[in-house]
């Protein structure tokens, strides 16, 4: 094959065209296709993430609008499971229950609240048990009264209607010398639970929330 012949020119020309096409495809067009594909993938991922975030935000805005209701629930829960032992409140409530049942202050023989113990702690060492959440403390509360059967029943009814939750676990009553009089001891558990921080009361939070 001679140099400069038509056959050689065809061969060289065809090869050069192929080279230009290949180089252009690999070095110029290919990266652009890759970049376009990457951009579209990134767009889809970002749109998906935005969709999730928008959904979360909608849920949060809904929660934010219902913050007042949630706050009332929190207050109601705090009334049932207060953040401290609240002994003055406890004595007032038990005394009111007794008086409401017709049992005088003298016949409210004893109110004995034990110190609250955090649930999930070792009773011997007092150290938290691994894996337990220090969300709740329990205290045993015993109340002794003297009264008739009906008074005792009304007293129990009043204890059940107290704002503070009182999980009565045992009741013992025994008749005294007076046929109508019974000495009754009520034992049960009350709970102490730390409150959840209210976002509106947070000092470092300047946002405006509905509810």
């Amino acid at each position, binding site marked *: 094959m001679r140099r400069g012949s038509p056959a050689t020119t065809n061969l060289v020309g065809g090869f050069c065209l192929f080279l230009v096409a290949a180089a252009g495809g690999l070095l110029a067009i290919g990266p652009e296709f890759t970049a*376009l594909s990457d951009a579209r993938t990134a767009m889809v991922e970002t749109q998906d993430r935005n969709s999730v975030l928008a959904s979360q935000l909608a849920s949060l805005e809904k929660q934010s609008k219902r913050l007042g209701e949630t706050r009332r629930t929190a207050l109601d*829960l705090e009334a049932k499971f207060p953040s401290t032992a609240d002994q003055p409140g406890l004595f007032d409530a038990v005394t009111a229950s007794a008086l409401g049942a017709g049992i005088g202050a003298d016949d409210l023989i004893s109110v004995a609240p034990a110190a609250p113990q955090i649930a999930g702690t070792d009773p011997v060492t007092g150290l938290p048990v691994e894996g337990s959440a220090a969300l709740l403390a329990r205290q045993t509360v015993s109340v002794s009264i003297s009264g008739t059967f009906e008074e005792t029943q009304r007293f129990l009814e009043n204890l*059940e209607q107290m704002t503070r939750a009182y999980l009565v676990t045992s009741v013992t009553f025994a008749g005294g010398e007076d046929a109508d009089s019974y000495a009754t001891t009520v034992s049960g558990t009350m709970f102490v639970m730390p409150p959840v921080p209210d*976002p509106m009361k947070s000092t470092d939070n300047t946002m405006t929330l509905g509810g």
Partner: protein
Amino acid sequence: MMQMRRGHHPRPGLPAVNLLSDAAFERLTTRRLRIRYLLAGVALVALLAATWAVQHARVAEARGLVAVERGETTRLEAETQTLAPVRAFVAGVDLQAQTVETNMEAEIYFSEVLDGLRRASPPSVRLASVAVTTATAAEPPVAGAAEAVPVLSACPGPDPFNTREVVGCITLSGTASSRFEVGELVVNLGDDPLFVEPFVSITTSGDTAGVEFSGSVGLAREAYSKRYGQPAKIVAETVSP
């Protein structure tokens, strides 16, 4: 091509003289080929450039859209972050509600238990002592814990082959005018949905008129207040006294 030229007929009236050699024809052909390849190359480059330009524009457009979407992401994240305390508050209150429900679900209205005892007692029966203990008293339920563990009930029942669920046990003692009245008390307790498995363990005739008795009766699930939800089932085993 050269063959074709050679095959041409001379125009009529004009002399047809070709003095070029075959090599010259070949050079001319090669030159034309080179020009064509050059033009084809230019066209190819132009096509590549156009394709690149279109793709580049599409990439730029897509990246612009990505930038817009990422801007939206930033805005959404900022707003979500702003409302994060609300989420923590709501989640905390929900957890507290669950904790209250879990710990109080075993609540029993003891006033109704006493009322039931009074309803079941015939007129001559006087209860001297009553002790009520719930089955879950030893280990109150903890939020997130598994169901209540089986409890060994201290409440004996009349049918050892057909024990029933007992959520608490009442031990009682008192006096009655006769054993018939004591039996009536047992029947009445058995008929009351609050109570299950009444069992009198002893009746004695004392110095005074009538009989003294002592026994026990179990508390049925109906005794639960249920205002905090349905408590977990308690698997109770009855043991002999």
